[in-house]
């Protein structure tokens, strides 16, 4: 009797194969899987972009280094790939890049740090709520507009102080770049300072220290890794900045570290070449990729150091 009913049921099950409910579940699972795969592919686009950037830069640079030796690239002191008498020494471009960045940092590091200390230790909650969005707005200003400002406002102003300053100079480009970087340093350094536990400040105040003493002798040393990381990340920003220097610093490669002179940076050179019409595959075309590779290595290096400093040397409380 029982045996019989079991066979009956199993026969019945064989007839309908899969219940509609189960079929729906299967469909649902397949759909879920497909969606997850699509989302994963979208996330992988970030990896693909990185590989594409490195790949393109390396590929075109390889073509460049078939004509130009690496030794000449790093030791020659002239950069004139588009001239009849071509020289391929990247040093003048690097000196221009470092000089404008140094001017920018000379302004942005002290001002940005003071602003960060003020925001984190002195400003009231309300003031912070108002000031931080304004800093963000400053970050959002397109760089070409800052280029206009550097060339047609800051340079004439500086020429009143230094009459012999040329119309294109690294000083005004660097200073304007510095103003652009201030909000960046201020916000990263402020984050680091705010991460310092309140109890350390309270301990300092309990000993009778003033706000200023607490900020300088307790909070700043405790947050020093984050602050230094902010500086390093700012260098990377300055090195990669393009439009301000392309507009205001001049386009003539010039091996100098004097900010009062005009000189081209790596980025300005790329812009200058791209403005012209260079045939695909020519040495001039390849040279901007070699320059781009140097730029990428520099910024990537600073970014990595910055992240390591922030992660590794973070004080744990």
């Amino acid at each position, binding site marked *: 009797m029982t045996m019989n009913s079991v066979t009956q049921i199993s026969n019945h099950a064989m007839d309908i194969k899969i219940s509609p409910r189960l079929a729906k579940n299967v469909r649902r699972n397949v759909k879920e899987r497909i969606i997850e795969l699509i989302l994963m592919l979208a996330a992988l*686009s*970030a990896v693909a*972009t990185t590989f594409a950037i490195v790949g393109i830069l390396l590929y075109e640079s390889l073509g460049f280094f078939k004509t130009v030796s690496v030794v000449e690239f790093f030791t020659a002191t002239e950069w004139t790939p588009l001239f009849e008498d071509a020289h391929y020494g990247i040093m003048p471009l690097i000196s221009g890049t470092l000089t404008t960045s140094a001017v920018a940092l000379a302004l942005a590091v002290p001002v940005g740090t003071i602003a960060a200390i003020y925001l984190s230790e002195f400003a009231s909650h309300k003031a912070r709520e108002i000031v931080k969005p304004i800093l963000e707005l400053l970050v959002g200003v397109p760089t*070409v507009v800052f280029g206009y400002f550097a060339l047609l406002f800051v340079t004439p102003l500086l020429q009143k102080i230094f009459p012999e300053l040329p119309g294109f100079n690294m000083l005004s480009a660097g200073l304007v770049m510095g103003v652009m970087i201030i909000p960046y340093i201020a916000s990263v350094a402020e984050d680091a300072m705010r991460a310092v536990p309140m109890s350390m400040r309270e301990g300092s105040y309990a000993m009778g220290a*003033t706000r200023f003493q607490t900020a300088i002798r307790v909070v700043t040393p405790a947050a020093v890794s984050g602050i230094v990381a902010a500086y390093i990340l700012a260098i990377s920003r300055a090195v*990669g900045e393009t439009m301000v220097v392309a507009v205001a610093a001049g386009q003539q490669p010039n091996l100098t570290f004097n900010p009062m002179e005009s000189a081209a940076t790596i*980025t300005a050179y*790329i812009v200058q070449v791209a403005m012209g019409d260079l045939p*695909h595959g020519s040495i001039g075309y390849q040279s901007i990729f070699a320059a781009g590779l140097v730029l990428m290595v520099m910024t990537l290096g600073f970014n990595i150091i910055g992240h390591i400093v922030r992660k590794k040397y973070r004080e744990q409380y």
Partner: protein
Amino acid sequence: MNSNTSPTKASVIENLGAVRAMIRRHKRNDIIFAIVGLLALMLGLITLLTLFIDLVMDGYARFNPQFFTDYPSRRAASAGLLSAWVGSALVMLVTFLTAVPMGVAAGLYLEEYAPKNWFSDLIEINVSNLAGVPSIVYGLLALGLFVYILDFGQSILTAGLTLGLLILPIVIVSTREAIRAIPVAIREAAYAVGATKWQVVSDHVVKYSQGGILTGVIIGMARALGETAPIITIGALTFIAFLPPSPVTTTPPFINFEWLSSGFTVLPIQMFNWLSRPDHAFHINAAATGAIIILVTLLMNGTAIWLRYKIRKNIKW
């Protein structure tokens, strides 16, 4: 103070005076630093204001309807922005259509799906790394990959894709931040009534993080609008006296895609072009263009910041 001998009255008063002087000095330091800090913060704001006033004062002569309806011209006074703003709008359309779906999908994957392993770490490292790559390097990628290898030419499609890749990290990061703010309880509640993962994500996670995602998208688009260097690098033409074919037609199928492969110019490039001419009359055009770009980006960024503020204030889980 020596504890063995009781201090004389005079020495106590003398010490008290010294201590009070010290306290006064320290309080003064506090005030001085607060003023210096405020000035450091104001430097950015003052620069922004000066910049904007300078642009408006230099360029106000060109603020008339013709400026927006005229093509570029060899005569500064009759040159206009028509092809530039139309180009900007079309490029932004492509950027939006690439960066938003990809960025949101990648953000969803990283927050909701990705397992904690080396693979997810790889993607995350890449995203944060891409955010630090100088924009001009994206231009080199586009020049090598989109313009020549994929043969899209120096077109609206190339520019849009380039800027899309450029702002992808911004969209991803803001999506992730918005998603992270949603409490686990919301997801658990949805799971408890039998929702699948995708149903939880699409019906709840995406819906509640919309505002935060929108904030990131607006900031990203503002960045793309003002970005100049990568577009110059792909070799955008600067003198465009025609409009791309209209995306919408009056005859079926009503939409055409010819505009994607059309040559173009955008607002910041037009500004850079006018700015790099020696003739001062063109600088007036550049100033007017700069004022317009800055106004639009400030409005966009301002909207985004305001939106974020509203969201933070209104949502209480």
